[in-house]
Protein backbone atom coordinates (compact mmCIF):
# COMPACT_ATOMS: atom_id res chain seq x y z
CA UNK A 1 0.00 0.00 0.00
CA UNK A 2 1.44 3.42 -0.89
CA UNK A 3 2.69 5.41 2.07
CA UNK A 4 0.34 8.34 1.56
CA UNK A 5 -2.64 6.08 2.32
CA UNK A 6 -1.54 6.07 5.95
CA UNK A 7 -1.57 9.85 5.96
CA UNK A 8 -5.05 9.93 4.46
CA UNK A 9 -6.26 7.41 7.05
CA UNK A 10 -4.70 9.42 9.85
CA UNK A 11 -6.31 12.65 8.61
CA UNK A 12 -9.73 11.01 8.41
CA UNK A 13 -9.32 9.64 11.93
CA UNK A 14 -8.39 13.09 13.21
CA UNK A 15 -11.37 14.60 11.40
CA UNK A 16 -13.67 11.98 12.99
CA UNK A 17 -12.36 12.79 16.46
CA UNK A 18 -12.67 16.58 16.23
CA UNK A 19 -16.05 16.88 18.05
CA UNK A 20 -14.81 14.55 20.81
CA UNK A 21 -11.24 15.73 21.42
CA UNK A 22 -10.89 16.41 25.17
CA UNK A 23 -9.34 19.57 26.47
CA UNK A 24 -6.19 18.53 28.39
CA UNK A 25 -6.62 21.32 30.95
CA UNK A 26 -10.34 21.11 31.64
CA UNK A 27 -12.85 18.28 31.81
CA UNK A 28 -14.96 19.40 28.85
CA UNK A 29 -14.29 18.81 25.17
CA UNK A 30 -11.73 20.94 23.37
CA UNK A 31 -14.11 22.32 20.77
CA UNK A 32 -17.51 23.81 21.55
CA UNK A 33 -20.52 23.36 19.29
CA UNK A 34 -19.65 26.65 17.64
CA UNK A 35 -16.14 25.42 16.87
CA UNK A 36 -17.59 22.24 15.40
CA UNK A 37 -19.89 24.41 13.29
CA UNK A 38 -16.83 26.31 12.06
CA UNK A 39 -15.12 23.05 11.13
CA UNK A 40 -18.27 22.08 9.24
CA UNK A 41 -17.90 25.30 7.28
CA UNK A 42 -14.26 24.40 6.58
CA UNK A 43 -15.38 21.10 5.08
CA UNK A 44 -18.12 22.78 3.06
CA UNK A 45 -15.69 25.34 1.67
CA UNK A 46 -13.26 22.53 0.92
CA UNK A 47 -15.86 20.87 -1.32
CA UNK A 48 -16.56 24.16 -3.09
CA UNK A 49 -12.83 24.83 -3.45
CA UNK A 50 -12.23 21.40 -4.92
CA UNK A 51 -14.91 22.23 -7.47
CA UNK A 52 -13.33 25.55 -8.37
CA UNK A 53 -9.93 23.88 -8.47
CA UNK A 54 -11.14 21.39 -11.09
CA UNK A 55 -11.99 24.38 -13.28
CA UNK A 56 -9.21 26.83 -12.44
CA UNK A 57 -6.36 24.62 -11.28
CA UNK A 58 -6.74 21.64 -13.57
CA UNK A 59 -8.46 23.18 -16.58
CA UNK A 60 -6.97 26.69 -16.42
CA UNK A 61 -10.26 28.60 -16.65
CA UNK A 62 -10.49 31.49 -14.16
CA UNK A 63 -13.81 31.97 -12.45
CA UNK A 64 -14.60 34.97 -10.27
CA UNK A 65 -18.21 33.87 -10.11
CA UNK A 66 -18.39 30.58 -8.29
CA UNK A 67 -20.36 32.28 -5.55
CA UNK A 68 -23.22 32.18 -8.06
CA UNK A 69 -23.22 28.38 -8.24
CA UNK A 70 -22.83 28.25 -4.47
CA UNK A 71 -25.94 30.43 -4.20
CA UNK A 72 -27.88 28.32 -6.71
CA UNK A 73 -27.04 25.15 -4.77
CA UNK A 74 -28.01 26.73 -1.46
CA UNK A 75 -31.31 28.06 -2.81
CA UNK A 76 -32.22 24.80 -4.52
CA UNK A 77 -31.62 23.01 -1.22
CA UNK A 78 -33.44 25.61 0.86
CA UNK A 79 -36.49 25.83 -1.43
CA UNK A 80 -36.81 22.03 -1.57
CA UNK A 81 -36.64 21.78 2.23
CA UNK A 82 -38.86 24.79 2.89
CA UNK A 83 -41.56 24.49 0.22
CA UNK A 84 -41.62 20.79 -0.60
CA UNK A 85 -40.59 19.20 2.71
CA UNK A 86 -37.79 17.25 1.08
CA UNK A 87 -35.42 15.73 3.69
CA UNK A 88 -32.05 17.51 3.85
CA UNK A 89 -29.96 14.59 2.57
CA UNK A 90 -32.15 14.25 -0.52
CA UNK A 91 -31.59 17.91 -1.49
CA UNK A 92 -27.92 17.30 -2.28
CA UNK A 93 -28.36 15.16 -5.43
CA UNK A 94 -30.97 17.58 -6.76
CA UNK A 95 -28.71 20.59 -6.12
CA UNK A 96 -25.87 18.67 -7.76
CA UNK A 97 -27.87 17.96 -10.92
CA UNK A 98 -29.27 21.49 -11.18
CA UNK A 99 -25.82 23.04 -10.78
CA UNK A 100 -24.26 20.56 -13.21
CA UNK A 101 -26.75 21.66 -15.86
CA UNK A 102 -26.47 25.38 -15.06
CA UNK A 103 -22.67 25.17 -15.03
CA UNK A 104 -22.54 23.22 -18.27
CA UNK A 105 -24.84 25.74 -19.98
CA UNK A 106 -22.75 28.64 -18.68
CA UNK A 107 -19.66 26.82 -19.86
CA UNK A 108 -20.86 26.88 -23.47
CA UNK A 109 -20.60 30.66 -24.06
CA UNK A 110 -17.53 30.65 -21.80
CA UNK A 111 -15.79 28.53 -24.44
CA UNK A 112 -15.25 31.65 -26.47
CA UNK A 113 -13.83 33.61 -23.56
CA UNK A 114 -10.38 33.28 -22.06
CA UNK A 115 -8.39 34.72 -19.21
CA UNK A 116 -9.52 38.21 -18.28
CA UNK A 117 -12.62 38.04 -20.44
CA UNK A 118 -13.77 34.92 -18.67
CA UNK A 119 -12.97 36.59 -15.35
CA UNK A 120 -15.26 39.49 -16.32
CA UNK A 121 -18.09 37.24 -17.51
CA UNK A 122 -18.02 35.12 -14.36
CA UNK A 123 -17.71 38.24 -12.20
CA UNK A 124 -20.86 39.56 -13.87
CA UNK A 125 -22.58 36.28 -13.07
CA UNK A 126 -21.60 36.62 -9.42
CA UNK A 127 -23.03 40.14 -9.33
CA UNK A 128 -26.23 39.21 -11.12
CA UNK A 129 -27.28 36.24 -8.99
CA UNK A 130 -27.92 38.08 -5.68
CA UNK A 131 -29.91 40.67 -7.64
CA UNK A 132 -31.96 37.96 -9.31
CA UNK A 133 -32.60 36.35 -5.92
CA UNK A 134 -34.03 39.66 -4.73
CA UNK A 135 -36.03 40.09 -7.93
CA UNK A 136 -39.65 40.66 -7.00
CA UNK A 137 -41.46 38.15 -9.28
CA UNK A 138 -39.36 35.30 -7.82
CA UNK A 139 -40.23 36.17 -4.23
CA UNK A 140 -42.76 33.35 -3.62
CA UNK A 141 -39.85 30.89 -3.90
CA UNK A 142 -36.79 32.84 -2.81
CA UNK A 143 -38.35 34.87 0.00
CA UNK A 144 -36.86 38.05 -1.48
CA UNK A 145 -34.46 40.10 0.65
CA UNK A 146 -35.48 38.24 3.83
CA UNK A 147 -34.32 34.91 2.47
CA UNK A 148 -35.46 31.55 3.82
CA UNK A 149 -35.20 30.45 7.44
CA UNK A 150 -34.83 26.70 7.98
CA UNK A 151 -34.30 24.51 11.00
CA UNK A 152 -31.26 22.34 11.61
CA UNK A 153 -31.86 18.61 11.22
CA UNK A 154 -31.75 16.31 14.27
CA UNK A 155 -29.36 13.34 14.27
CA UNK A 156 -31.06 10.16 13.03
CA UNK A 157 -31.79 7.00 15.11
CA UNK A 158 -32.05 9.08 18.31
CA UNK A 159 -28.26 9.40 18.36
CA UNK A 160 -28.58 12.68 20.25
CA UNK A 161 -30.06 10.79 23.19
CA UNK A 162 -28.05 7.58 23.06
CA UNK A 163 -24.63 9.10 22.23
CA UNK A 164 -25.16 12.72 23.19
CA UNK A 165 -24.52 13.77 19.61
CA UNK A 166 -25.46 17.42 19.15
CA UNK A 167 -27.11 18.78 15.99
CA UNK A 168 -23.90 20.57 15.02
CA UNK A 169 -21.81 17.45 15.52
CA UNK A 170 -24.23 15.41 13.41
CA UNK A 171 -24.13 17.94 10.56
CA UNK A 172 -20.34 17.87 10.86
CA UNK A 173 -20.24 14.10 10.37
CA UNK A 174 -22.77 14.27 7.57
CA UNK A 175 -20.64 16.90 5.79
CA UNK A 176 -17.49 14.87 6.36
CA UNK A 177 -19.17 11.85 4.79
CA UNK A 178 -20.22 13.88 1.73
CA UNK A 179 -16.74 15.39 1.51
CA UNK A 180 -15.04 12.00 1.52
CA UNK A 181 -17.25 10.71 -1.28
CA UNK A 182 -16.73 13.82 -3.38
CA UNK A 183 -12.97 13.90 -2.82
CA UNK A 184 -12.71 10.23 -3.72
CA UNK A 185 -14.74 10.81 -6.89
CA UNK A 186 -12.67 13.84 -7.83
CA UNK A 187 -9.44 11.94 -7.29
CA UNK A 188 -10.56 9.12 -9.55
CA UNK A 189 -11.73 11.54 -12.21
CA UNK A 190 -8.56 13.66 -12.12
CA UNK A 191 -6.14 10.71 -12.02
CA UNK A 192 -7.66 9.12 -15.10
CA UNK A 193 -8.30 9.91 -18.72
CA UNK A 194 -10.57 12.89 -17.96
CA UNK A 195 -8.05 14.51 -15.64
CA UNK A 196 -5.26 14.12 -18.18
CA UNK A 197 -7.48 15.67 -20.85
CA UNK A 198 -8.27 18.64 -18.59
CA UNK A 199 -4.60 19.26 -17.81
CA UNK A 200 -3.65 18.88 -21.47
CA UNK A 201 -6.19 21.54 -22.43
CA UNK A 202 -4.83 23.86 -19.75
CA UNK A 203 -1.21 23.40 -20.78
CA UNK A 204 -1.63 23.56 -24.53
CA UNK A 205 -5.06 23.95 -25.96
CA UNK A 206 -4.10 23.42 -29.57
CA UNK A 207 -1.93 20.40 -28.89
CA UNK A 208 -4.78 18.83 -26.92
CA UNK A 209 -7.09 19.46 -29.84
CA UNK A 210 -4.65 17.80 -32.22
CA UNK A 211 -4.37 14.77 -29.97
CA UNK A 212 -8.07 14.17 -30.52
CA UNK A 213 -9.43 15.56 -27.26
CA UNK A 214 -12.86 17.11 -27.69
CA UNK A 215 -11.77 20.39 -26.08
CA UNK A 216 -15.16 22.11 -26.23
CA UNK A 217 -16.89 19.21 -24.54
CA UNK A 218 -14.25 18.83 -21.85
CA UNK A 219 -14.12 22.54 -21.10
CA UNK A 220 -17.90 22.81 -20.72
CA UNK A 221 -17.92 19.60 -18.70
CA UNK A 222 -15.22 21.02 -16.43
CA UNK A 223 -17.50 24.00 -15.87
CA UNK A 224 -20.44 21.72 -15.16
CA UNK A 225 -18.63 19.40 -12.74
CA UNK A 226 -17.01 22.36 -11.02
CA UNK A 227 -20.41 24.03 -10.60
CA UNK A 228 -21.81 20.72 -9.34
CA UNK A 229 -19.23 20.50 -6.55
CA UNK A 230 -19.78 24.10 -5.58
CA UNK A 231 -23.56 23.61 -5.72
CA UNK A 232 -23.40 20.62 -3.37
CA UNK A 233 -21.34 22.77 -1.01
CA UNK A 234 -24.04 25.42 -1.29
CA UNK A 235 -26.80 22.95 -0.44
CA UNK A 236 -24.74 21.83 2.57
CA UNK A 237 -24.50 25.44 3.79
CA UNK A 238 -28.27 25.68 3.63
CA UNK A 239 -28.37 22.64 5.95
CA UNK A 240 -25.57 23.75 8.29
CA UNK A 241 -26.42 27.45 8.58
CA UNK A 242 -30.18 26.83 8.32
CA UNK A 243 -30.64 30.21 6.67
CA UNK A 244 -30.16 31.56 3.15
CA UNK A 245 -30.42 35.20 2.04
CA UNK A 246 -29.29 36.97 -1.14
CA UNK A 247 -26.76 39.12 0.70
CA UNK A 248 -24.86 36.14 2.10
CA UNK A 249 -23.91 35.27 -1.49
CA UNK A 250 -22.34 38.58 -2.48
CA UNK A 251 -19.23 38.99 -4.54
CA UNK A 252 -17.05 38.42 -1.47
CA UNK A 253 -17.95 34.71 -1.50
CA UNK A 254 -16.67 34.33 -5.06
CA UNK A 255 -13.46 36.19 -4.23
CA UNK A 256 -12.90 34.14 -1.05
CA UNK A 257 -13.31 30.96 -3.08
CA UNK A 258 -10.65 32.04 -5.57
CA UNK A 259 -8.38 33.11 -2.69
CA UNK A 260 -8.93 29.73 -1.02
CA UNK A 261 -8.00 27.82 -4.16
CA UNK A 262 -4.74 29.71 -4.64
CA UNK A 263 -3.82 29.63 -0.93
CA UNK A 264 -4.51 25.89 -0.75
CA UNK A 265 -2.59 25.19 -3.94
CA UNK A 266 -3.68 25.15 -7.57
CA UNK A 267 -4.26 21.75 -9.13
CA UNK A 268 -3.95 19.89 -5.83
CA UNK A 269 -6.72 17.95 -4.09
CA UNK A 270 -5.67 18.20 -0.41
CA UNK A 271 -5.06 21.93 -0.88
CA UNK A 272 -8.81 22.46 -0.70
CA UNK A 273 -8.81 21.63 3.03
CA UNK A 274 -6.12 24.24 3.73
CA UNK A 275 -8.00 26.74 1.60
CA UNK A 276 -11.13 26.06 3.64
CA UNK A 277 -9.23 26.56 6.90
CA UNK A 278 -7.88 29.86 5.56
CA UNK A 279 -11.29 31.15 4.47
CA UNK A 280 -12.99 30.33 7.76
CA UNK A 281 -10.34 31.21 10.33
CA UNK A 282 -8.22 34.06 8.91
CA UNK A 283 -10.94 36.74 9.17
CA UNK A 284 -11.54 35.71 12.81
CA UNK A 285 -7.88 35.92 13.77
CA UNK A 286 -7.49 39.15 11.82
CA UNK A 287 -10.28 40.56 13.95
CA UNK A 288 -8.42 39.49 17.10
CA UNK A 289 -5.23 41.21 15.93
CA UNK A 290 -6.82 44.50 14.95
CA UNK A 291 -10.41 45.39 15.72
CA UNK A 292 -10.08 48.67 13.82
CA UNK A 293 -8.94 47.36 10.45
CA UNK A 294 -9.29 43.55 10.35
CA UNK A 295 -9.38 43.42 6.57
CA UNK A 296 -6.06 45.24 6.36
CA UNK A 297 -4.55 42.42 8.43
CA UNK A 298 -6.26 39.90 6.15
CA UNK A 299 -4.79 41.63 3.09
CA UNK A 300 -1.29 41.65 4.56
CA UNK A 301 -1.57 37.94 5.46
CA UNK A 302 -2.75 37.24 1.91
CA UNK A 303 0.22 39.02 0.34
CA UNK A 304 2.70 37.38 2.74
CA UNK A 305 1.26 33.96 1.88
CA UNK A 306 1.89 34.64 -1.80
CA UNK A 307 5.49 35.68 -1.09
CA UNK A 308 6.25 32.67 1.06
CA UNK A 309 4.20 30.04 -0.79
CA UNK A 310 3.46 31.17 -4.35
CA UNK A 311 2.26 27.62 -5.10
CA UNK A 312 -0.06 27.42 -2.11
CA UNK A 313 0.15 25.54 1.18
CA UNK A 314 -0.01 22.09 -0.38
CA UNK A 315 2.50 23.11 -3.05
CA UNK A 316 4.86 24.21 -0.28
CA UNK A 317 4.36 20.96 1.65
CA UNK A 318 5.04 18.87 -1.47
CA UNK A 319 8.17 20.86 -2.21
CA UNK A 320 9.30 20.43 1.38
CA UNK A 321 8.76 16.67 1.29
CA UNK A 322 10.60 16.36 -2.01
CA UNK A 323 13.54 18.40 -0.73
CA UNK A 324 13.69 16.20 2.36
CA UNK A 325 13.67 12.98 0.31
CA UNK A 326 16.41 14.31 -1.93
CA UNK A 327 18.47 15.26 1.12
CA UNK A 328 18.02 11.76 2.58
CA UNK A 329 19.02 10.14 -0.70
CA UNK A 330 22.21 12.17 -0.97
CA UNK A 331 22.98 11.45 2.69
CA UNK A 332 22.61 7.71 2.01
CA UNK A 333 24.84 7.90 -1.03
CA UNK A 334 27.47 9.64 1.06
CA UNK A 335 27.68 6.76 3.53
Amino acid at each position, binding site marked *: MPRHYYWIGLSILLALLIPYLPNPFKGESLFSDFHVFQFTLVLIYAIALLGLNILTGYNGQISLGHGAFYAVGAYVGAILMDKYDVPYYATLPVAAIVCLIVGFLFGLPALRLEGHYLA*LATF*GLALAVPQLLKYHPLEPWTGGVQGIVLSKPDPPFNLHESLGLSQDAWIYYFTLFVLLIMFWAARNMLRGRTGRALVAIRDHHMAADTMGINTSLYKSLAFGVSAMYTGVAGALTAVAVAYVAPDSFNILVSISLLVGVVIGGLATIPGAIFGGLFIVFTPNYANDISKAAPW*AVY*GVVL*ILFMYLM*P*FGVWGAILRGVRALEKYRKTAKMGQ
Partner: protein
Amino acid sequence: MDFVIQQITSGLAEGAIFASVALALVMIFTATEHLNFAQGEMAMFSTYLAWTLINAGVPYWLAFVITVVISFAGGVTIEYVVLRPLARAPVLAYVIVFIGLLVIFNSMAGWIWSYVLKEFPSPFKAFATGSNLIGSHQLGVIAVTLIVLTALFLFFKFTPLGLAMRAAAQNPVSAKLVGIRVGWMLALGWGLAASIGAVAGMMVAPIVFLDPNMMAGILLYGFASALLGGISNPAGAVLGGFIFGVLQNVPTIIERLLNINVIGNELKLTFALVVVVAVLTFKPSGLFGQVRIKRV
Protein backbone atom coordinates in the same frame (compact mmCIF):
# COMPACT_ATOMS: atom_id res chain seq x y z
CA MET B 1 -37.00 64.27 -26.38
CA ASP B 2 -35.38 66.26 -23.58
CA PHE B 3 -35.56 63.16 -21.43
CA VAL B 4 -33.67 61.11 -24.01
CA ILE B 5 -30.94 63.75 -24.38
CA GLN B 6 -30.63 64.05 -20.61
CA GLN B 7 -30.22 60.31 -20.24
CA ILE B 8 -27.59 60.26 -22.97
CA THR B 9 -25.58 63.15 -21.53
CA SER B 10 -25.70 61.74 -18.01
CA GLY B 11 -24.64 58.41 -19.53
CA LEU B 12 -21.73 60.16 -21.21
CA ALA B 13 -20.70 61.81 -17.93
CA GLU B 14 -20.76 58.49 -16.06
CA GLY B 15 -19.06 56.93 -19.06
CA ALA B 16 -16.27 59.49 -18.71
CA ILE B 17 -15.55 58.11 -15.24
CA PHE B 18 -15.63 54.52 -16.47
CA ALA B 19 -13.32 55.68 -19.24
CA SER B 20 -10.77 57.11 -16.79
CA VAL B 21 -10.75 53.92 -14.75
CA ALA B 22 -10.49 51.89 -17.95
CA LEU B 23 -7.54 54.05 -19.01
CA ALA B 24 -5.80 53.40 -15.68
CA LEU B 25 -6.35 49.66 -16.09
CA VAL B 26 -4.99 49.75 -19.63
CA MET B 27 -1.84 51.55 -18.42
CA ILE B 28 -0.89 48.64 -16.17
CA PHE B 29 -2.20 46.00 -18.55
CA THR B 30 -0.12 47.07 -21.55
CA ALA B 31 3.00 47.14 -19.41
CA THR B 32 2.52 43.95 -17.40
CA GLU B 33 -0.44 41.97 -18.83
CA HIS B 34 -2.04 42.09 -15.39
CA LEU B 35 -5.37 43.61 -14.51
CA ASN B 36 -5.04 45.59 -11.33
CA PHE B 37 -8.07 44.76 -9.20
CA ALA B 38 -6.88 47.24 -6.57
CA GLN B 39 -7.07 50.16 -9.02
CA GLY B 40 -10.43 51.35 -7.73
CA GLU B 41 -9.43 51.26 -4.09
CA MET B 42 -6.18 53.08 -4.86
CA ALA B 43 -8.25 55.80 -6.54
CA MET B 44 -10.57 55.94 -3.54
CA PHE B 45 -7.61 56.32 -1.19
CA SER B 46 -6.21 59.17 -3.31
CA THR B 47 -9.59 60.88 -3.23
CA TYR B 48 -9.55 60.75 0.57
CA LEU B 49 -6.12 62.41 0.51
CA ALA B 50 -7.58 65.18 -1.67
CA TRP B 51 -10.52 65.53 0.72
CA THR B 52 -8.16 65.90 3.68
CA LEU B 53 -6.14 68.57 1.85
CA ILE B 54 -9.25 70.52 0.82
CA ASN B 55 -10.64 70.34 4.35
CA ALA B 56 -7.34 71.69 5.66
CA GLY B 57 -7.95 74.80 3.55
CA VAL B 58 -5.85 74.07 0.47
CA PRO B 59 -7.43 75.51 -2.72
CA TYR B 60 -9.10 72.88 -4.91
CA TRP B 61 -6.77 72.84 -7.90
CA LEU B 62 -3.63 72.89 -5.72
CA ALA B 63 -5.03 69.94 -3.76
CA PHE B 64 -5.80 68.27 -7.09
CA VAL B 65 -2.21 68.59 -8.29
CA ILE B 66 -0.73 67.50 -4.94
CA THR B 67 -2.99 64.42 -4.91
CA VAL B 68 -2.01 63.45 -8.44
CA VAL B 69 1.69 63.76 -7.55
CA ILE B 70 1.36 61.81 -4.30
CA SER B 71 -0.64 59.10 -6.09
CA PHE B 72 2.06 58.85 -8.74
CA ALA B 73 4.69 58.32 -6.05
CA GLY B 74 2.41 55.83 -4.31
CA GLY B 75 1.90 53.83 -7.50
CA VAL B 76 5.63 53.66 -8.17
CA THR B 77 6.26 52.58 -4.58
CA ILE B 78 3.65 49.80 -4.71
CA GLU B 79 5.16 48.39 -7.91
CA TYR B 80 8.64 48.58 -6.46
CA VAL B 81 7.93 47.24 -2.98
CA VAL B 82 4.98 44.87 -3.35
CA LEU B 83 5.03 43.52 -6.89
CA ARG B 84 8.69 43.32 -7.82
CA PRO B 85 9.48 40.46 -5.39
CA LEU B 86 6.75 38.43 -7.13
CA ALA B 87 8.42 38.52 -10.54
CA ARG B 88 8.31 34.78 -11.18
CA ALA B 89 5.07 33.84 -9.41
CA PRO B 90 2.13 32.27 -11.30
CA VAL B 91 -0.51 34.63 -12.71
CA LEU B 92 -3.09 33.79 -10.08
CA ALA B 93 -0.64 34.72 -7.33
CA TYR B 94 -0.74 38.25 -8.76
CA VAL B 95 -4.53 38.23 -8.71
CA ILE B 96 -4.43 37.28 -5.03
CA VAL B 97 -1.92 40.03 -4.24
CA PHE B 98 -4.16 42.55 -6.00
CA ILE B 99 -7.10 41.34 -3.93
CA GLY B 100 -4.89 41.72 -0.85
CA LEU B 101 -4.05 45.32 -1.81
CA LEU B 102 -7.75 45.97 -2.43
CA VAL B 103 -8.84 44.93 1.06
CA ILE B 104 -5.87 46.72 2.66
CA PHE B 105 -6.71 50.06 1.04
CA ASN B 106 -10.40 49.64 1.73
CA SER B 107 -9.86 48.77 5.37
CA MET B 108 -7.24 51.47 5.94
CA ALA B 109 -9.54 54.14 4.49
CA GLY B 110 -12.37 53.00 6.74
CA TRP B 111 -10.05 53.05 9.72
CA ILE B 112 -8.53 56.48 9.05
CA TRP B 113 -11.56 58.35 7.72
CA SER B 114 -14.47 56.15 8.98
CA TYR B 115 -17.24 54.70 6.84
CA VAL B 116 -19.45 57.80 7.10
CA LEU B 117 -20.36 59.29 3.70
CA LYS B 118 -18.49 62.52 3.01
CA GLU B 119 -19.34 65.31 0.64
CA PHE B 120 -16.69 66.11 -1.94
CA PRO B 121 -16.67 69.50 -3.69
CA SER B 122 -16.97 69.85 -7.45
CA PRO B 123 -14.65 72.40 -9.07
CA PHE B 124 -17.11 73.04 -11.90
CA LYS B 125 -19.88 74.64 -9.87
CA ALA B 126 -18.54 78.14 -10.62
CA PHE B 127 -19.79 78.37 -14.19
CA ALA B 128 -23.27 77.42 -15.30
CA THR B 129 -23.88 75.71 -18.64
CA GLY B 130 -27.06 77.67 -19.24
CA SER B 131 -28.89 74.48 -20.17
CA ASN B 132 -30.92 71.97 -18.26
CA LEU B 133 -29.75 69.12 -20.47
CA ILE B 134 -26.31 68.74 -18.91
CA GLY B 135 -24.98 69.74 -15.50
CA SER B 136 -21.79 71.75 -15.12
CA HIS B 137 -20.07 68.92 -13.26
CA GLN B 138 -21.00 66.40 -15.94
CA LEU B 139 -19.56 68.63 -18.64
CA GLY B 140 -16.43 69.17 -16.53
CA VAL B 141 -15.93 65.42 -16.04
CA ILE B 142 -16.14 64.77 -19.77
CA ALA B 143 -13.68 67.60 -20.46
CA VAL B 144 -11.19 66.38 -17.85
CA THR B 145 -11.28 62.84 -19.27
CA LEU B 146 -10.62 64.09 -22.77
CA ILE B 147 -7.76 66.30 -21.51
CA VAL B 148 -6.17 63.36 -19.68
CA LEU B 149 -6.47 61.19 -22.77
CA THR B 150 -4.91 63.86 -25.01
CA ALA B 151 -2.08 64.45 -22.57
CA LEU B 152 -1.33 60.72 -22.41
CA PHE B 153 -1.47 60.45 -26.19
CA LEU B 154 1.02 63.30 -26.59
CA PHE B 155 3.23 61.85 -23.86
CA PHE B 156 3.43 58.40 -25.41
CA LYS B 157 3.72 59.64 -28.99
CA PHE B 158 6.14 62.53 -28.71
CA THR B 159 8.41 62.17 -25.67
CA PRO B 160 11.48 59.93 -25.41
CA LEU B 161 10.25 58.61 -22.06
CA GLY B 162 6.89 57.69 -23.59
CA LEU B 163 8.67 55.87 -26.39
CA ALA B 164 10.84 54.01 -23.87
CA MET B 165 7.75 52.96 -21.92
CA ARG B 166 6.05 51.67 -25.06
CA ALA B 167 9.17 49.76 -26.02
CA ALA B 168 9.47 48.22 -22.55
CA ALA B 169 5.85 47.10 -22.69
CA GLN B 170 6.00 45.65 -26.19
CA ASN B 171 9.30 43.87 -26.13
CA PRO B 172 11.03 43.89 -22.75
CA VAL B 173 14.06 41.89 -23.86
CA SER B 174 14.96 44.05 -26.84
CA ALA B 175 14.18 47.18 -24.83
CA LYS B 176 16.64 46.05 -22.19
CA LEU B 177 19.28 45.46 -24.86
CA VAL B 178 19.05 49.04 -26.11
CA GLY B 179 19.54 50.34 -22.60
CA ILE B 180 16.00 50.99 -21.36
CA ARG B 181 15.55 50.26 -17.68
CA VAL B 182 12.49 48.06 -18.09
CA GLY B 183 11.86 47.66 -14.36
CA TRP B 184 11.63 51.41 -13.90
CA MET B 185 9.33 51.74 -16.89
CA LEU B 186 6.91 49.29 -15.23
CA ALA B 187 7.03 51.31 -12.04
CA LEU B 188 6.35 54.51 -14.02
CA GLY B 189 3.38 52.79 -15.66
CA TRP B 190 2.02 52.02 -12.20
CA GLY B 191 2.58 55.62 -11.17
CA LEU B 192 0.70 56.92 -14.21
CA ALA B 193 -2.14 54.49 -13.57
CA ALA B 194 -2.39 55.60 -9.95
CA SER B 195 -2.50 59.28 -11.05
CA ILE B 196 -5.22 58.65 -13.64
CA GLY B 197 -7.15 56.69 -11.02
CA ALA B 198 -6.83 59.59 -8.59
CA VAL B 199 -8.31 61.96 -11.21
CA ALA B 200 -11.18 59.51 -11.78
CA GLY B 201 -11.78 59.29 -8.03
CA MET B 202 -11.90 63.06 -7.60
CA MET B 203 -14.31 63.32 -10.51
CA VAL B 204 -16.68 60.63 -9.28
CA ALA B 205 -16.69 61.61 -5.59
CA PRO B 206 -18.99 64.67 -6.02
CA ILE B 207 -21.56 62.41 -7.69
CA VAL B 208 -21.60 59.31 -5.48
CA PHE B 209 -20.24 60.87 -2.24
CA LEU B 210 -16.97 59.80 -0.74
CA ASP B 211 -16.91 56.48 1.11
CA PRO B 212 -14.49 53.55 1.21
CA ASN B 213 -16.69 51.39 -1.03
CA MET B 214 -17.45 54.00 -3.66
CA MET B 215 -15.21 52.50 -6.35
CA ALA B 216 -16.21 48.84 -6.07
CA GLY B 217 -18.84 48.95 -8.80
CA ILE B 218 -17.06 51.58 -10.84
CA LEU B 219 -13.94 49.42 -11.10
CA LEU B 220 -15.96 46.56 -12.55
CA TYR B 221 -17.63 48.83 -15.09
CA GLY B 222 -14.27 50.38 -15.94
CA PHE B 223 -12.98 46.85 -16.45
CA ALA B 224 -15.95 46.02 -18.68
CA SER B 225 -15.41 49.26 -20.63
CA ALA B 226 -11.75 48.48 -21.15
CA LEU B 227 -12.57 45.02 -22.48
CA LEU B 228 -15.41 46.37 -24.62
CA GLY B 229 -13.18 48.97 -26.25
CA GLY B 230 -10.19 46.67 -26.50
CA ILE B 231 -7.79 46.34 -23.59
CA SER B 232 -4.71 46.83 -25.75
CA ASN B 233 -5.85 50.22 -27.03
CA PRO B 234 -6.07 53.27 -24.68
CA ALA B 235 -8.30 55.30 -27.01
CA GLY B 236 -10.50 52.25 -27.54
CA ALA B 237 -10.82 51.82 -23.78
CA VAL B 238 -11.95 55.44 -23.40
CA LEU B 239 -14.50 55.03 -26.18
CA GLY B 240 -15.60 51.79 -24.53
CA GLY B 241 -16.21 53.77 -21.33
CA PHE B 242 -18.46 56.29 -23.08
CA ILE B 243 -20.34 53.53 -24.91
CA PHE B 244 -20.83 51.61 -21.68
CA GLY B 245 -22.06 54.75 -19.91
CA VAL B 246 -24.71 55.42 -22.54
CA LEU B 247 -25.56 51.73 -22.85
CA GLN B 248 -26.55 51.44 -19.19
CA ASN B 249 -29.21 54.13 -19.74
CA VAL B 250 -30.66 52.55 -22.87
CA PRO B 251 -33.17 50.35 -20.99
CA THR B 252 -34.35 53.39 -18.98
CA ILE B 253 -34.98 55.31 -22.21
CA ILE B 254 -36.80 52.43 -23.89
CA GLU B 255 -38.87 51.69 -20.82
CA ARG B 256 -39.83 55.34 -20.49
CA LEU B 257 -40.82 55.51 -24.15
CA LEU B 258 -42.84 52.29 -23.97
CA ASN B 259 -44.07 53.06 -20.45
CA ILE B 260 -43.07 49.71 -18.97
CA ASN B 261 -40.80 48.67 -16.10
CA VAL B 262 -38.94 45.40 -16.46
CA ILE B 263 -35.28 46.09 -15.79
CA GLY B 264 -35.66 49.11 -13.51
CA ASN B 265 -32.84 50.93 -11.79
CA GLU B 266 -31.29 48.01 -9.92
CA LEU B 267 -30.69 45.79 -12.91
CA LYS B 268 -29.55 48.43 -15.41
CA LEU B 269 -25.84 47.88 -14.83
CA THR B 270 -26.29 44.12 -14.91
CA PHE B 271 -28.03 44.59 -18.23
CA ALA B 272 -25.09 46.58 -19.58
CA LEU B 273 -22.71 43.93 -18.33
CA VAL B 274 -24.65 41.17 -20.07
CA VAL B 275 -24.53 43.14 -23.31
CA VAL B 276 -20.77 43.58 -22.97
CA VAL B 277 -20.21 39.87 -22.36
CA ALA B 278 -22.42 39.11 -25.36
CA VAL B 279 -20.39 41.49 -27.54
CA LEU B 280 -17.16 39.91 -26.33
CA THR B 281 -18.29 36.42 -27.22
CA PHE B 282 -18.62 37.56 -30.82
CA LYS B 283 -15.68 39.94 -30.86
CA PRO B 284 -13.21 38.67 -28.26
CA SER B 285 -10.60 41.40 -28.76
CA GLY B 286 -13.10 44.20 -28.12
CA LEU B 287 -14.58 46.70 -30.52
CA PHE B 288 -11.34 48.58 -31.23
CA GLY B 289 -8.70 46.20 -29.94
CA GLN B 290 -6.00 44.56 -31.98
CA VAL B 291 -6.74 40.97 -32.89
CA ARG B 292 -4.00 38.91 -31.34
CA ILE B 293 -2.31 36.41 -33.56
CA LYS B 294 -0.61 33.58 -31.74
CA ARG B 295 2.39 31.87 -33.22
CA VAL B 296 2.30 28.10 -32.83
